[in-house]
């Protein structure tokens, strides 16, 4: 448990990210809170359109020009990043918060060697280092992400590497300035299953070595179960349930979380038919008036269509936004 006196590394409060204005305003992120402790991994699960990627961009100060942070606070070690001018944010990005993405090939420049691209990242935050020193640091970073014979691979171009190796390079780049927080947005989704396991293991090991915190964004509950200490489940721009991994996987309260857990086929049992969640995620410009999950929910009552439930506690830090939780009977 963390000392109650030290504030969490990252604390997001009531964050709203909006696009458009007036009647055309849509909220991709609508009143989200999130706490990430030092050295811990917070998994964020959601389907497409849940707002999980926009949340991570907001934390990085990278909301696209067409959108804005409409309200809320993003505190990193007590300092609010939400209103920070571009230049100050620039100093935090990369140095204190780093990010890795799904497709490493689109984030790497195909025309430069990975050594040169790593050097760029190192130099951006340390202008005094000599060329020799920077190269050695690049090789050292490749070694840290377990790339075999880093002295040789440092001169490779991205196309000479496999997908798993390229993701290791991206991780090396993200680690170059020793960030306190690493945001990983679907970092293993594009990789083969046997390579995915290796990358997840690597991230865990690096976390143990450096003590950095991670926000791990994914649509895959299996991946979250493998990496996360805490989990938040997002649906249509809101967090519908949050708690420890154990809370979520063994004591899920929200019907959406239950639906997600139930609809995955599993190796350890034979089901004749997969349970489904009917319908689809509503688009942000056409949200239901009450609970956003109400139209798809088997437990919904008329009350659920009338008002949007807030997060309520279910023991410890386990919160769920459902009027009907803990569900005991099906609505008729």
């Amino acid at each position, binding site marked *: 448990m963390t000392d109650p006196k030290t504030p969490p590394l990252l604390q997001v409060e009531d964050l709203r990210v909006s696009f458009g204005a007036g009647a055309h305003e849509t909220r991709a992120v609508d009143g989200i809170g999130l706490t990430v402790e030092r050295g811990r991994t917070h998994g964020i699960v959601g*389907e*497409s359109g849940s707002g999980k990627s926009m949340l991570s961009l907001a934390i990085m100060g990278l909301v696209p020009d067409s959108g804005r942070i409409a309200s809320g606070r993003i505190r990193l070690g007590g300092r609010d990043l939400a209103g920070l001018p571009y230049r100050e944010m620039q100093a935090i990005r990369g140095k204190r918060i780093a990010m890795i993405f799904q497709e490493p090939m689109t984030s790497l420049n195909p025309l430069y060697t990975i050594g040169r691209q790593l050097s760029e990242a190192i130099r951006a935050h340390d202008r005094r280092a000599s060329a020799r020193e920077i190269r050695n640091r690049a090789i050292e970073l490749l070694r840290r992400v377990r790339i075999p014979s880093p002295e040789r691979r440092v001169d490779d171009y991205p196309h000479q590497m*496999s*997908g*798993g*190796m390229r993701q290791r390079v991206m991780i090396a780049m993200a680690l170059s300035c020793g960030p306190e927080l690493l945001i990983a947005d679907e970092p293993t989704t594009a990789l*083969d*299953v*046997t*390579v*995915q*396991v*290796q990358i*997840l*293991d690597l991230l865990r090991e690096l976390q143990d070595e450096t003590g950095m915190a991670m926000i791990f964004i994914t*649509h*895959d*509950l*299996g*991946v*979250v*179960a*493998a990496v996360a200490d805490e989990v938040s489940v997002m649906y249509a721009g809101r967090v519908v349930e949050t708690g420890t*991994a154990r809370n979520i*996987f*063994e*004591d*899920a*309260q929200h*019907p959406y*979380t*239950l*639906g*997600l*857990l*139930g*609809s*995955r*086929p*599993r*190796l*350890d049992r*034979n*089901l004749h*038919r*997969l*349970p*489904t*969640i*009917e319908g*689809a*995620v509503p688009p942000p410009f056409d949200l239901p008036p009450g609970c956003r999950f109400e139209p798809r929910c*088997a*437990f919904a009552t008329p009350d659920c269509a009338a008002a949007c439930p807030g997060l309520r506690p279910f023991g410890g830090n386990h919160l769920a936004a459902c009027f009907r939780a*803990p*569900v*005991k*009977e*099906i*609505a008729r």
Partner: protein
Amino acid sequence: MSHHLLELENVTRQFQVSAGLSRGRGGAVVRAVDNVSLTLEKGETLGLVGESGCGKSTLARLALKLLDPDAGTIRYNGQDITDRSRSTMRPLRRRMQMIFQDPSASLNPRMTVGELIEEPLIVHEIGNRASRRARVSELLSLVGLSDYHASRQPHQFSGGQRQRIGIARALAVNPELIVCDEPVSALDVSIQAQIVNLMQDLQTGLGLSYLFIAHDLAVVKHIADRIAVMYLGKIMEIGPADRLFENPRHPYTRTLIASVLSPDGKRRQAAPATGDLPSPLAVPEGCRFHPRCPHATDLCRRLDPALQELGEGHQSACHHAASLPTIAPPEAKRQQPTPAERRMGLAIQARS
């Protein structure tokens, strides 16, 4: 004697890789599918799993004769179709269709959904305008869409609905065989289950046979009767789905199963494979899995193992198939279901 619906016998297909600018000599050869034999029965689902570059998509295209094999024989309903020309293949194409991974890339954005579903009927000169329209509306309801959807365009639909349109298009000409290339991997988790259920319902209702290609083992195990595991162009193990999962007899299959991350957070035993997939341009000598295999011996480095029968149609291409350590069955189920599982049961009950 009854025939297999589809039969591939010792099929090989290789590709010439262009030499590139910097190298003077001729390009290398990739053997994408290397001496593969398999059969598909009527009404059956054969799952084909493997990682990128293993040749599963090439195999799918060979099965439909969209590609010609360099060696081997392909039979459909007992007829040898290996050397059939495009024009003589045409009548058969009505009976074999395909569903693709990315429904938005495989649907023409300028056509309405009605036109898209009608197109295969026009191509195969089936019916007249009125009967085709009637068929379109029948197909829409078959895949869970409505008549009014016919006048809309693909961009007005969600990913799951677009995949339903892709399925309706494949079903239009009443095929017997559908090759499904990663049909659910681009879809959201909650939508995947809907599409998998739809495909199973259609199979039961229409007597379809599926060649179901996917990298997601849990989905394949759920839908397939038999499963073939491919690695660098070769079938490493094939057998009834339950048997293959309960008693995998190839180290690569074990690696794949061990890599499945399940939401109960417990990873299966069996050592994960070390290292990356080798390039298909440089397939290792001997058994192609040996550099990553924890059980490799000298024999494996020298000799490429052939598939050997282990009973009930279960075959493995491993020298040590019979002597691999038995893996303990997945840990006994907890006596008490978790509260989440009880609530899930309630949710499932609510749907039925």
